């Protein structure tokens, strides 16, 4: 898994996540994101265009971040889900509790 900070727009931190999010890599995602939150960032747009696979541990990692940010008055949105990742979000019903957009641009318009 590779997490990249691609810059800040409209007070939102843009992040891309590539590779696999499973029980092994998700703690890294939580730590990296936690680091940014500690630096004061509370609004995130996460681009999943490069994400190949997500397990239930990955879902939990995202859920943890969502709940944490919600308590701080911030939010996290996901964009550009594809393939099995998109399927997992649909099957698990996560797509109904986490905002998901087609693209980063679409997300930015809503923020």
């Amino acid at each position, binding site marked *: 898994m590779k997490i990249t900070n691609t810059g800040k727009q409209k007070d939102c931190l843009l992040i891309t996540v590539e590779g696999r999010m499973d*029980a092994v890599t998700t703690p890294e995602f939580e730590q990296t994101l936690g680091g940014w939150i500690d630096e004061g960032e509370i609004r995130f747009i996460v681009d999943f265009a490069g994400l190949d696979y997500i397990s*239930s*541990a990955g879902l*939990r990692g995202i*859920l*943890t971040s969502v709940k944490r940010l919600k308590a701080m008055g911030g939010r996290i949105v996901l964009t550009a889900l594809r393939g099995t990742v998109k399927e997992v979000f*649909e099957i698990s019903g*996560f797509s*109904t*509790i986490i905002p998901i957009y087609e693209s980063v641009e679409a997300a930015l318009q809503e923020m």
Partner: protein
Amino acid sequence: MLKNRGIAFKLVLFILFSEIAIFTFIFGYNYLVSRRIIEKNIEQNARNLVMATVNRIDSALRAVEKIPKNLLYILEDLPLTGVEVKDLLRTVVENNPDIYGAAIALEPYAYSKDKLCFAPYYCRSGGKLKFTYLDCDSYTWDWYRIPKEVNHAVWSEPYYDEGAGNRMMSTFSVPFYKSVKGKKRFMGVITADISLTWLKKIVSSIKIAQTGYGFLISKNGRFVTHPQTNLIMNETVFSVAKATNNINLQKIGREMTEGKSGFAPFTSMRTGKKCWIGYAPLSTSNWSLGILFPQDELMSDITDLNHAVWALSVGGFLILMVVIIIIAGSITRPLRALSKATEGIATGDLDVELPQIRSQDEVGVLAESFKQMEDSLKQYIKDLTETTAAKERIESELYVARDIQMGMLPTVPPPFPDIALFDIYATLEPAREVGGDLYNFFFMDDDHLCFAVGDVAGKGVPAALFMTVTQTLIKTKGIKGLSPGEILESVNKDLSLENPSFMFVTLFVGILHIRTGALQFSSGGHNPPYIIRADGKIEAMELTGGIPLGIVEDFSYQSKMTGLKKDDTIFLYTDGVTEAMNEKHELFSSARLEEDLLGLKDKPVEQMAGGIMESIEAFSRGTPQTDDITILLLRFYGEAG
């Protein structure tokens, strides 16, 4: 063989070998060069000595030659009377101690018409002068004949004079002439005798080392003087050479009699030692002087030097050997002690006392390192023992936990043997000792079978704890008359109440009417189960829009309806099945699962479940299982079956 020896041995061996090689080279070089220099000097000295000796003998002989020559002038100019001649001879012999005797021999009848032979002769005998007239036979001797024939003064070959002196001598004869009517007429010879003993004294006065000597040979090669008295007069160089078959001597003899000078190696016939021989002709007589130089005596200086160098080398070598042995020993002694001590460590005894090494060199550092290693090892083993004990404790607790967790699952195979309306089979394979997957089935009443499969996010102990709560809640909330959606809502509410670590569980709940096949179901974010129809079709069940349980407290879960016909099978699973991985990180996938399900659809449910598990195992080929795997199969037969 050598590599098994100790460092000290090798050190001593290699250094001393090098040392021997260096000493030998230096010694050899020194020996050769100094020998060449000394040989050159010896040759030069020898030549000088030969020349000096030749000159000395020559001057002695020249002094002798002067006597008859001076006499000649007197005799040629004066008319001679017998008395005058006799007195003259006496004076001459008396005044010249070097000569043994002197004679004046006149041609027959040259003295007077009536006297055939006139040859007065004075010689020494017993410290006195003795006078004789030599008889007429004397005129046939070489000393008279040869100068008469060759018309000049000559030295005779050495001869033994019986009549006059009874001794070995050589004679210098000067012919003299008188002019008679303008014609030169041979008148006779004037002679001076030298005793060979006198000559020998001169020659033997030359001291050449200890056993070196000089000798004279005549024109014919006859020995004139030689330390071996028996050779004198009796032998020639050539007769000796012939007798001993010595070609070298013959060659040297020829050169000497031809009047040449030279310097050549030679083996002494007396001692058999190596010598050099130097030779040069006398300028007075036609004799040749030879001098024998014994090599070993002349070379004794360099031999002594070499002995001294040898002795110093051997002494130095021995000192060096002792020093190296001491140094090597002092280096390897602590190493040996250390090595012996570490043997103990190697066998596992970490309480071995390491030797105290005070030096701060490499060995000292090594010993210190060993000590630290020993301490670290002790500490490490202590830690390891503690950790292992703790780990074993946890592991044993985990196995107990696993038993408890497995005990919470309904018993398979067929828990309801008296009911022939359906078959149910389930299996659960945790990735670790305990896991977060669950399955459940129970009768809500006589007709309704409730069944469920769930998957807690994550693995291990946290997931297992959440699973046990969920499992318990399903059983307690599955009250008669409730729909699957209502059960999910109820469970979700309880799970969401106290969930600080945001755990969640995906859960599928179905309720089957075991007589009619009517199926009510609801999914909380779980993978949709498959229905494998009796006619060979496979379909994924619809989604009901539910989210995993434990996230949103008041979420409303919807139920849906479908129906099973005879021999239809419903297959519930967790994502551990489709997401099982092989070594290439490929997933087992739902496509492969569907294919396997169709292939196995005619088998009993237990064999079907086994077939799927085998297929997963064959696919992953030993790649460690990363997620819990759960399968639940339910086949409907209905009233008619």
